[in-house]
């Protein structure tokens, strides 16, 4: 009665060259993560009043390190991971190769963009943080680099859509396999969401940094940035949801319950793109009515998140009970905790509960006044992207790297210890940052050198440094396990990636078949975007290119 969520359950082998592109994306992403993590140590110590950056090679200031930390971890790693992992899940879901030329073009575009942006950041030409608000001006190579990173995702999306079209031609009337649906929905959402940052970079920032136009429009730049800046978190999260919905149930011995509900959750993320104004609650030039409407819309995101919490926990419960778990919570302890991949991802889910709740505080219109731009915000997002996403990347790597290398994971025990250590570290770090933020400690500020300090920031600062140290130690163990698996893991024959089955098969009639019609949801999303952003843009355009700003601050 169960239905596999891929087109060809018997087994589909990916071409060697395609797997090499997946591998290159993954390893490059983890390499930049290593750099980002090392720089993160300075950020954590900074809050404790210790200026570590003086001891770093190449890096000259707290802000330069912070810029690289943000761009590498939140933009380059996430793009590289998605471009690699989602190509794999799409191809496996459809039982069909993605156009190899496009997959490789995406890889090289991403690499070129990352190298260009890295050059600008390491040479001190782009100390503008990963939000790069104009009129702080970076070298043009930074903007061009970021544009190329975004373009690499569009090429990946095109590769998916070509494969989907071919699959539909060969399988008329069949539902898109769930694994492929989730993977493609992720990129369809991102295609819409990334338009804001693309327009900002190409139309405002590049011409300005090249001297073609004399100034820029700071408010419009911010607005376009946050148009993308909120749904970019969906782009970080949805590849993880592909794993949580599509793989974790299988890995933990359970089954995913509902096909339709899973698709609906992804569709809701496509619809809920235009909520970026909630990052601008305290901005002038945005009307209160608009802020209020967006606050309400933002709360709607809570809904697909709760759907996910239900579906994933239910799947884990099925697994735990099949393995002999009893009672209300007994099943939880029977999840295969000894599987490093499951362990890391279940811990990531626990962190996401706290991350989601702290996110509601940020989004809460009036409550936001207490926390906006304070350390509360990094306290929140180190639980979400910093753990729910990053620890899930790690958990996925614990089966994906063995699959790619055809070698068993080196030291499963160390891998499990690493995940628990990471969770302990982030809980202490975030507790520190959140407490500091509530006491008014600002974020992205070199507290260690600041001309002011408050007594209430002292203990939170120490907790931040202590938690950060544990996280960095945990990451060092992860990289050890990763490298040792690649060079010294026991050879093993791993035939396929783990994908789950669903209890209820996809419906072949009724409203559910419309879930697969991406163009419906794209049109609906564009209409919603026009309603939210239309009036603001109508009043604000044409751009006021008056701010000349500061260069390489």
């Amino acid at each position, binding site marked *: 009665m169960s239905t596999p969520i891929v087109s060809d359950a018997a087994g589909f082998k990916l071409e060697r060259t395609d797997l090499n592109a997946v591998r290159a994306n993954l390893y490059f992403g983890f390499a930049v993560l290593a750099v980002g993590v090392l720089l993160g140590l300075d950020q954590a110590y900074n809050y404790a009043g210790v200026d570590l950056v003086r001891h770093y090679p190449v890096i000259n200031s707290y802000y330069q390190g912070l810029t690289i930390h943000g761009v590498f971890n939140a933009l380059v790693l996430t793009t590289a991971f998605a471009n690699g992992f989602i190509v794999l899940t799409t191809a496996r879901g459809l039982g069909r190769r993605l156009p190899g030329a496009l997959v490789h073009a995406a890889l090289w575009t991403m690499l070129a963009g990352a190298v260009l942006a890295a050059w600008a950041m390491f040479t001190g030409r782009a100390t503008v943080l990963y939000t790069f608000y104009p009129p702080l001006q970076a070298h043009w190579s930074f903007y061009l680099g970021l544009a190329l990173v975004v373009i690499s995702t569009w090429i990946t999306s095109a590769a998916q859509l070509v494969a989907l079209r071919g699959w539909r031609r060969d399988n008329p009337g069949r539902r898109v396999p769930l694994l492929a649906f989730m993977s493609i929905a992720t990129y369809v959402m991102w295609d819409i969401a990334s338009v804001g940052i693309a327009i900002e970079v190409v139309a405002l920032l590049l011409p300005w940094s090249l001297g073609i136009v004399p100034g820029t429009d700071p408010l419009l730049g911010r607005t376009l940035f946050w148009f993308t800046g909120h749904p970019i978190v969906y782009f970080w999260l949805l590849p993880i949801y592909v794993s949580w919905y599509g793989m974790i149930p299988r890995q933990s011995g359970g089954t995913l319950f509902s096909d339709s509900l899973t698709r609906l959750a992804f569709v809701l993320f496509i619809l809920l793109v235009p909520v970026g104004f909630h990052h601008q609650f305290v*901005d*002038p*030039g945005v009307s209160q009515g608009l802020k209020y409407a967006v606050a309400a819309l933002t709360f709607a995101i809570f809904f697909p998140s709760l759907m996910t919490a239900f579906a994933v926990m239910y799947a884990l419960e099925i697994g735990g009970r099949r393995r002999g778990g009893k009672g209300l919570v007994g099943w939880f302890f029977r999840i295969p905790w000894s599987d490093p991949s499951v362990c890391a991802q279940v811990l990531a889910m626990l962190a996401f509960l706290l991350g989601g709740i702290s996110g509601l505080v940020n989004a809460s219109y*009036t409550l936001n006044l207490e926390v906006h731009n304070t350390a509360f915000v990094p306290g929140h997002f180190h639980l979400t992207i910093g753990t729910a996403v990053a620890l899930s990347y790690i958990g996925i790597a614990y089966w994906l790297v063995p699959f790619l290398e055809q070698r068993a994971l080196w030291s499963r025990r160390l891998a499990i210890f690493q995940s628990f250590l990471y969770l302990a570290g982030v809980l202490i770090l975030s507790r520190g940052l959140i407490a500091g933020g509530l006491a008014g400690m600002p974020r992205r*500020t070199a507290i260690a050198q600041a001309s002011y300090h408050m007594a209430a920031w002292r203990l939170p600062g120490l907790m931040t440094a202590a938690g950060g140290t544990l996280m960095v130690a945990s990451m060092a163990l992860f990289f050890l396990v990763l490298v040792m698996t690649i060079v010294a893991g026991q050879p093993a024959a791993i035939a396929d990636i783990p994908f789950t089955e669903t209890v209820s098969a996809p419906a072949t009639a009724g409203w559910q078949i419309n879930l697969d019609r991406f163009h419906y949801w794209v049109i609906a999303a564009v209409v919603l975007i026009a309603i939210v952003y239309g009036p603001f843009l109508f009043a604000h355009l044409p751009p006021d290119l*008056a*701010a000349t700003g500061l260069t390489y601050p």
Partner: protein
Amino acid sequence: MERFEKAFLCAAAIVLVIFLGALAYSSLAMGIHLPSHFGMIHYTAGQKLRRVLRQTPPFDRPGVREIAPGKYQVTVIGLTWSFLPAVIELPAGAEVTFVATSMDVIHGFFIPGTRVNMMLIPGQVSECVYRFRQPGEYLLICHEYCGRLHHTMSARMVVK
């Protein structure tokens, strides 16, 4: 959909409605408002924003002004890396309207321990209203990265 699934989603919807109700209550009934749009400063890339501000009231005279009995307006300019004025003195309990803008890049305007939290964007004027009930020293800091010495950008507030 299964029974549990439906029950869970209904519960989620109810929680959502409660949250939205709380939001409406805090803004409408408790009267907590976000910083809003006070106006714009029009200038072009050829003009120095510093000179334009010097000729644009109220920014021609930054500082504290009593606009009505017991009501004060504090006009502040943020610039890399300080606030104008650097010291602000206010009486406790008075209704204070902060009117602020930036002279160069985006800055923050944040008084820890209060709800005064806004962004300063060049060309836009920010406004917020607050009442300091406790006398004492407060810190006004920039909480948006604005360049190399961002962490030195602060002003002192004295409430008597």
